[in-house]
């Protein structure tokens, strides 16, 4: 049996013995980026589809965008934490490099803020009247938007387009790095987009579950939630949208599972380096965590639970939402870490 053995004297930190330049900061950023992308797309669709006094949409096109602004800021902060030359971060915005997905992403992130803010403002006074009373200007902005149908459509479309760009970019960012065979697939873009959509639908579903009065909830949690609701004088959200979100989440999870399947088939039937990369998830060190936390508790279990909820065999709970969110987070962590383990040299050396 012929062998090939490499002895390399290089010893650079973060590079040797195996690449580990990107850690939790990038995984969390990719997760939050996907989540915000999903919130934008859902918000855009609902803003265009909403009818007057249809309060059920508020969780999607007001609460979702507000949460999205918070998540995006958190994501950009973790991205900043990852930078090694932090004081030079402004350099991102002095140029546009057409071949760099990271350059595209940094400019897309700037578009997300105004799009999400406009979407949130459209129905903000209706959702949180206390805020509108304290800042009457929000009422004027809301009126300005809602009186112009073309503007409502434009804001909705902008959210959908920027959301799709943001969701796909997080996958393309890794997919274009051909030196890491596990990442080298165009399917990472749609995979992260649909994973983001499923976590966004789960987040909105989770918000509905948390804010719905529940006798079985611990008294302390109930006190906190009711105090918060009183503080902002928020209208109770309509729980009728819950089944819609659960149904949408099931569709997104099914598509995500199909793309993951294609992703693995593509690698497993490709070149030796890609087969070796796929083996990290199919018999290698990341197999157990991938199949348990991404496929098992992240996709299959929530699919079953939400199907039972939709067929009224069990009541709607927070459990599937939490599982989907953790599954989406696990997907980013596993792909970021496993991708750095995959390499041309190591694959050729085996």
């Amino acid at each position, binding site marked *: 049996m012929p062998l090939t053995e490499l002895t390399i004297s290089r010893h650079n930190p973060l590079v040797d013995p195996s690449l580990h330049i990107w850690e939790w900061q990038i995984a969390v950023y990719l997760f939050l980026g996907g989540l915000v992308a999903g919130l934008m797309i859902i918000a855009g669709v609902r803003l265009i589809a909403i009818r007057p006094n249809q309060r059920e949409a508020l969780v999607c096109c007001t609460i979702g965008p507000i949460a999205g602004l918070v998540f995006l800021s958190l994501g950009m902060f973790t991205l900043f934490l990852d930078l090694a030359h932090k004081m030079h971060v402004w350099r991102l915005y002095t140029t546009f490099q057409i071949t760099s997905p990271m350059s595209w992403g940094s400019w897309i992130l700037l578009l997300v803020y105004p799009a999400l803010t406009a979407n949130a403002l459209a129905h903000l006074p209706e959702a949180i009247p206390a805020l509108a009373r304290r800042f009457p200007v929000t009422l004027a902005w809301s009126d300005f938007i809602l009186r112009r149908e073309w503007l409502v459509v434009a804001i909705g479309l902008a959210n959908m387009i920027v959301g799709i760009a943001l969701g796909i970019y997080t996958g393309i960012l890794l997919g274009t790095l051909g030196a890491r065979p596990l990442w080298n697939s165009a399917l990472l873009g749609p995979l992260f987009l649909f994973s983001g959509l499923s976590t966004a639908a789960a987040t909105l579903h989770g918000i509905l579950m948390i804010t719905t009065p529940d006798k079985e909830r611990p008294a302390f949690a109930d006190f906190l939630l009711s105090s918060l609701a009183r503080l902002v004088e928020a209208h109770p959200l309509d729980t009728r949208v819950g089944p819609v979100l659960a149904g949408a989440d099931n569709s997104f999870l099914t598509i995500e599972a199909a793309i993951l399947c294609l992703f693995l088939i593509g690698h497993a039937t490709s070149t030796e380096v890609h087969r070796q990369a796929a083996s990290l998830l199919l018999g290698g060190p990341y197999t157990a965590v991938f199949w348990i936390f991404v496929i098992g508790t992240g996709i299959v279990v929530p699919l079953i639970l939400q199907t039972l909820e939709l067929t009224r065999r069990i009541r709607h709970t927070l459990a599937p939402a939490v599982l989907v969110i953790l599954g989406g987070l696990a997907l980013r962590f596993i792909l970021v870490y496993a991708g750095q383990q995959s390499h041309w*040299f190591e694959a050729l050396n085996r």
Partner: protein
Amino acid sequence: MPRYAMAIDTRKCVGCNDCVAACKTENNIPLGYTRDWITEEVHGAFPTLQLEIRSERCNHCDDPPCVSCCPTGASHIHDRGGVVLVDHDKCIGCKACIAACPYNARYVHPDGYVDKCTFCIHRVEEGLDPACVAVCPTHCMHFGDLDDPESDVSRLLASRPFHALIPEAGTKPCIFYLT
């Protein structure tokens, strides 16, 4: 316009690390980091094993993925000789170029920016060889212009069998190993 390249004779290289030490001294590389290194590759089936010793560094590829993925333009191809360089002032330390390099030739300098071999362009512009080439005790390293048919590199590549590292990656590396 020259196109700088290196031809390294693996039949002469003994892996003495002189090139590594010269690079560290010339370029003031911090302790614990390295721009070039020695790789020993053994292949074959016992007892007919073959050993190849290589001095490796950034391959200054013709199609460098580290340049195309850089979001600020810090990684760039130098006007003279197609040498791939990093503008330290523009680098934000996002490390995308490190992930994009199939040769793992880059690292994060303790000062925050990404660093790598420059082919000692400051010496080359003064008409000197890169430090690693200049000190090699076995004269196994040759530096020159690939577009000049009379250069050492061009003549060696025309007369000797050679290979590059991971040509399958499609980056068109400009360091060639004579066998």
